[in-house]
């Protein structure tokens, strides 16, 4: 049984939602559509829980990233797909993808419950929704660059329709903007993908990459990296490829100045889709940075760290300032996403184990918090039919339970200790300060980097304060203050809404008080191996 799961569980996870989508298309009425979709998401979530049985968190010697024996990647299933290009169907899981996979199935399940009140073309909605889940899981689980790209793109099409058909008043603009922005990045990534492959074709002397490879495990291996360097993937070429792939991922994350699609997409998207967009789709960008951009182009990553770091810090500060200036509740949450995802980018740039662990944690905690925040906004929008912050006030007295849930979400978002938002920010900041120590990877480049690293870290700290500022101000404006007569008759949260909010709240608290048990135990080995790999690659390139 375990043997079977080891081989097939990931494939089942990826394609289970597709099967559900096909079932949904044949469902008769609205209720059976909903229940089929819900059943599928529950089944997918249950299947992902089986990962706890098979996933070995303690493998890997903390040194060899992704290598066959002693590596952290497991449950690998591979089959040749396109022989002439050595493209494989290759899926596998490690500490980078494990939390994100669980997050995806979890959020998709909750978003499916949150979609219960979608009335328009329910069948199409649910089919696209499940199709999207396949794209998401495929992106997180594929270890072949080409396959990754296919899934990465695959998630675009359903998202376009989900925003475009079921969105708000400016849905068309938002949907096409989302599509165009992402496609610009994707084309760059496509060029990187083919270019890297062409370089691997020139490698001689390594048997298992003969004829080129798209295998991300092999691409990150030190001997392959060295051979790639000899084949010409160094210097300007490597930097161009790194920047092009970062462009694709930073658009997805999104980072300032490539973030402008996000507020529009969020504001227009229906609540469950906003949840998925913020909680999972943005993470595809962050995941791509850790899975592809850094291990495949380590030398460029190490030389362009300052650029990435600045982008991260600017996103934190600028995103927070923008959030503070918003009048629309949902836009505020969207900009807060930009700000928080900046920590992920900063964590990547700093390349210390703590920072990377923090960035991974940040992705998961932000996934939970942002899903909760968007749902909270959705609840009030369903009742008030507007989202203007200045027109709210005094909701605490009419909807005390709702206010309770909201407050948890808000405090988690602003990083209150004991809730999950805190851990990620602290870990990233801690890791950033550690990067200024003399034994860190970044400091290999010379002692002059100390000041720059410290500056970035200190500036990033102010982001935390700004976040607290706009979050508290929002709580005050929306929930406290005098009760407004027009909101007096608002019904309290329904049972369905509680059903969505409770698991999110539980997770926000659990991750906040027991982060090690619920998170770091699964990622730490991989992150150490990831760091070990980069350190070794740094030596490889130093000797080149």
């Amino acid at each position, binding site marked *: 049984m375990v043997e079977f799961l080891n081989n097939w569980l990931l494939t089942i996870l990826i394609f289970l939602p597709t099967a559900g989508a096909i079932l949904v298309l044949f469902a008769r009425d609205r209720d059976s559509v909903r229940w089929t979709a819900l059943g599928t998401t529950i089944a997918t979530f249950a299947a992902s829980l089986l990962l706890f049985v098979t996933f070995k968190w303690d493998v890997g010697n903390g040194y060899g990233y992704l290598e066959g024996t002693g590596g952290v990647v497991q449950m690998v299933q591979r089959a040749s797909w396109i022989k*002439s290009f050595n*493209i494989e169907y290759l899926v596998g899981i490690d500490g980078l993808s494990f939390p994100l996979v669980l997050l995806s199935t979890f959020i998709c399940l909750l978003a499916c419950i949150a979609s219960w009140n979608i009335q328009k073309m329910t069948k199409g909605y649910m089919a696209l929704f499940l199709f999207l889940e396949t794209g998401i899981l495929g992106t997180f689980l594929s270890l072949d660059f080409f396959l990754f790209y296919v899934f990465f793109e695959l998630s675009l099409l359903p998202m376009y329709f989900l925003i475009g058909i079921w969105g708000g008043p400016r849905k068309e603009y938002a949907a096409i903007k989302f*599509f165009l922005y992402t496609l610009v990045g994707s*084309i760059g990534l496509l060029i990187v993908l083919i270019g890297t492959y*062409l370089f691997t074709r020139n490698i001689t002397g390594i048997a298992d990459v003969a004829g080129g490879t798209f295998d991300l495990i092999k691409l990150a291996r030190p001997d392959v990296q060295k051979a790639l360097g000899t084949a010409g993937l160094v210097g300007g070429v490597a930097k161009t490829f790194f920047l092009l792939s970062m462009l694709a991922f930073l658009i997805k994350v999104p980072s300032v100045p490539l973030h402008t699609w996000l507020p529009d997409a969020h504001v227009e998207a229906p609540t469950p889709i906003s949840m998925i967009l913020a909680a999972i789709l943005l993470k595809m960008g962050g995941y791509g940075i850790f899975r592809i951009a850094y291990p495949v182009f380590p030398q460029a990553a190490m030389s362009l760290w300052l650029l990435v770091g600045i982008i991260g810090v600017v996103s934190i500060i600028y995103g927070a300032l923008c959030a503070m200036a918003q009048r629309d509740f949902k836009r505020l949450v969207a900009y807060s996403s930009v700000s928080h995802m900046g920590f992920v980018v900063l964590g990547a740039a700093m390349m210390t184990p703590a920072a990377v662990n923090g960035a991974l944690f940040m992705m998961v905690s932000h996934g939970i918090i942002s899903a909760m925040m968007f749902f909270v906004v959705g609840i009030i929008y369903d009742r008030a039919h507007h989202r203007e912050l200045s027109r709210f006030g005094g909701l605490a007295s009419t909807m005390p339970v709702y206010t309770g849930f909201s407050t948890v979400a808000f405090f988690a978002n602003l990083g209150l200790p004991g809730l999950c938002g805190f851990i990620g920010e602290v870990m990233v900041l801690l890791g950033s300060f550690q990067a200024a120590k003399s034994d860190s990877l970044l400091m290999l480049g010379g002692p002059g980097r100390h000041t720059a690293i410290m500056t970035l870290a200190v500036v990033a700290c102010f982001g935390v304060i700004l976040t607290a500022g706009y979050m508290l101000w929002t709580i005050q404006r929306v929930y406290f203050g005098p009760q407004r007569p027009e909101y007096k008759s608002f019904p309290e949260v329904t049972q369905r809404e509680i059903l969505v909010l409770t698991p999110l709240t539980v997770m926000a608290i659990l991750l906040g008080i027991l982060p090690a048990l619920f998170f770091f135990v699964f990622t730490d080995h991989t992150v150490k191996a990831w760091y070990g790999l980069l350190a070794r690659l740094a030596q490889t390139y130093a000797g080149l």
Partner: protein
Amino acid sequence: MNTLPVAIGLPYVPDWGQLRAFAPELWLIAAIVAVLLTPFFVKKPNAACGWVALVGLLAALVSVFVVGVDGTGEHFRGLMVADPVSVFWKGLLLMFVIGIVLMWFSTTAPTMHQGDGPEFFTLLLGATLGMSLMASTSNLLMLVIAVELASLPSYVLAGFRKTHLAGAEASLKYILFGAATSSIMVYGLSMLYGLYGTLQIDGPGGLAQQIATSGGSALLWMAIFSLIVGLGFKISAVPFHFWCPDVFEGASIEVSAFLSVASKGAGLVLLMRVMMSFASAQAYESTPLLNHLAVLLGVLGAITATVGNTAAFVQRNIKRLLAYSSIAHAGYMLCIVSLLVRGPAVKADLDLASTAAQVVLFYLAVYLFMNLGAFTVAGLIERETGTERIADYAGMGRRSPLMAFCLSACLFSLVGLPPFAGFVAKVNVFWALMQNGSWWWWLVGVIGVNTVLSLYYYVRVIKVMYLDDSSSAPIWPHPLGAGVAVVCAAILVFMLIAFGPINRLAGHYSHFYGVDQTTFTAEFSSSQPPP
């Protein structure tokens, strides 16, 4: 080598082997005769002619499969060649025309004036014959005949809707453009004959070899330019593309679809053959002629793609939009053709040139289904609602979910997005260009930007279908046409999954006869997959 390939006075009797290699063409000719005879036996001949044409096309397609590459070689005293590329193209073309006939049954057939069928199918099959001959010529005389045989019926087909004013205008425009460009081409080809005294392109003493030994001259360049003008018209390369949108708009939908793939494909295959001969005769060395030719074709391709994509932005009519889209795709393929005459020579040149041919053939195969599907849906919708305006597609996602889905699949594939085969076709293009490096990187950039541009106007159609709503009634498309559209969409997904085998197939058939014979036979007889 004869100066005139057909010796006058001597009876020439082709043997069985030569005829066998051209069995598809013979079937087409038989079908044309049968179509012409049909009205004598059937009172209402339209549908009957359709069936006769269908049977003829099927027979021709079967004969393509039966004969395969057996007949590879020069035939009819060097007037024609049969080789893997021509076989592949004929297979594609015949499959496509079968699709066109099925499309005709489901779109135009009921409204076509009874009695017009024989003419229509004679013209259609005649043009098909010309287009399949275009892939098999290695002689200037035959080249002109094939191009004209493809063009003349097309002119009439473009204006076939006699009651439509736009159709007449389209036809006239098409004729004027075609006449001008083909006269330029014939003029240039006559110059070639004057310069080198032969009509043969390949072979010892052929044009390509003489050019290689004597080097370039101003006259030669004029001749090459005029050849590119003539073929550029068929491919609808900018600036010879002006006929394309008007003709597509004016002609009935199956004719537009036919021209969008068949005419362009035939032109591209012919262009590839000529360029390949030039490059092969110069041993793929980095000669100025080849370098300039490559740049010329590359720039032409880049401009064509950009103009096609930008002009498509403002289109309100689905047929015009697809016309500009087809111009853009011709541009992408031209970019690849520029690789055929790659200048800087390294060892694996023939591989490289063959790879370029393989990429174009694969692209054509994918392009065929994308366009057939898109045009079929447009035709079905036109038949049901009588409109070609994109704005009238509003609510199609609700009014006809299946058609909207098929059209979206084809359009996404035209953008080049997974899970549709247009994606791998584009990957192939990028791959081939990047493999060459040097200035081809610019083409990579141009195509990249163009892809993003194209997303906007393709998605605009999808937007109208799904995002805009209207109170119009649901429509029930003709089941045959709906079947064609669904099959096209399904094939597009299938071609992505089966990209490896199909690409390998294209690779197997990407060899030209007469191009570096020794390597050619070695390559083709070995069953190893191409790199």
